[in-house]
């Protein structure tokens, strides 16, 4: 990390999540404020502030993207694509689940370790596929994934006891993987009026 340059990963993360109309302005504000803070505080404290702003901004930005999508005329098309990708994703997850629990890792503890990688891998690929078909559909897919995980946690689908951070990790990383993978693998961002998500 260069002196006075904000955390690169946090910048990339925000660029991937913040809706297009305010992406540049918001990131510019954060970069400017970060530079001011490094003059009066340590770079570590400034980076911590930057990360906290980035993480705390995500729910508002995702909610804003969702509202923008619902306001657009073709939200039904985006939603239909998300539902289609979601169904395929669930079939793949179910197949992977069976493969792991029956043949690869019959012991529950090994299953608990392997499951997140498989689940996050499949949600990431689904996010990328949805974004390739229609960029606006990823926000609906991320929402469906989040609801699915929340229901699974509520119904205690995992048969062996797991710590809270394991469940929280699923709840946050699964929808984020849907939103961030298109940025990692280079699905073009919309230029105006749309949203990154």
């Amino acid at each position, binding site marked *: 990390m260069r002196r006075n340059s904000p955390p690169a990963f946090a910048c990339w993360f925000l660029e991937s999540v913040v809706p297009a109309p305010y992406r540049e302005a918001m990131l510019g504000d954060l*970069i400017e404020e970060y530079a001011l803070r490094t003059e009066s505080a340590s770079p570590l404290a400034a980076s911590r502030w930057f990360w906290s702003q980035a993480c705390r901004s995500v729910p508002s930005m995702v909610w804003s993207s969702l509202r923008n999508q619902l306001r657009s005329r073709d939200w039904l098309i985006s939603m239909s694509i998300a539902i289609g990708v979601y169904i395929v994703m669930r079939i793949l997850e179910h197949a992977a689940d069976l493969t792991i629990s029956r043949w690869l890792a019959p012991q529950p503890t090994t299953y608990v370790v392997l499951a997140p990688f498989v689940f996050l891998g499949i949600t990431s690929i689904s996010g990328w596929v949805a974004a390739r078909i229609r960029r606006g559909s990823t926000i609906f897919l991320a929402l469906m994934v989040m609801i699915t995980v929340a229901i699974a946690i509520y119904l205690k689908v995992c048969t062996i006891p797991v710590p809270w951070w394991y469940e929280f990790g699923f709840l946050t990383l699964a929808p984020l993987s849907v939103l961030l993978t298109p940025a990692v693998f280079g699905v073009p961002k919309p230029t105006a009026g749309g949203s990154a998500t």
Partner: protein
Amino acid sequence: MERGELLGSLEHIILLALARLDGSAHGMIVRREIEERIGRNVSIGAVYATLERLEAKGYVSSFTGEPTPERGGRAKRLFRVEAAGKRALQVSEQTIRSMTAGLNGHWEGI
């Protein structure tokens, strides 16, 4: 009073912050003003999401400034309170005044 003119709490605070800042400012200045005035550490994302909502309602308008090196070559987006926004602030102010009239000392014991 029309239902649509009622402001949410963060909308109200952000409009007041913009009004205090000579009617126009960018997101980070608004965030800082709120933190300094009422000690509420609002995220920049929440500020921009609310400003976007206010803009959609016609209460504020925005224009893009010049990109600067301090901002990593990114342009500022300046927000300005519009007449509808001022009207909404007046309505909110009147609503609060009407609802709190005669309640002096009634907070105790609540």
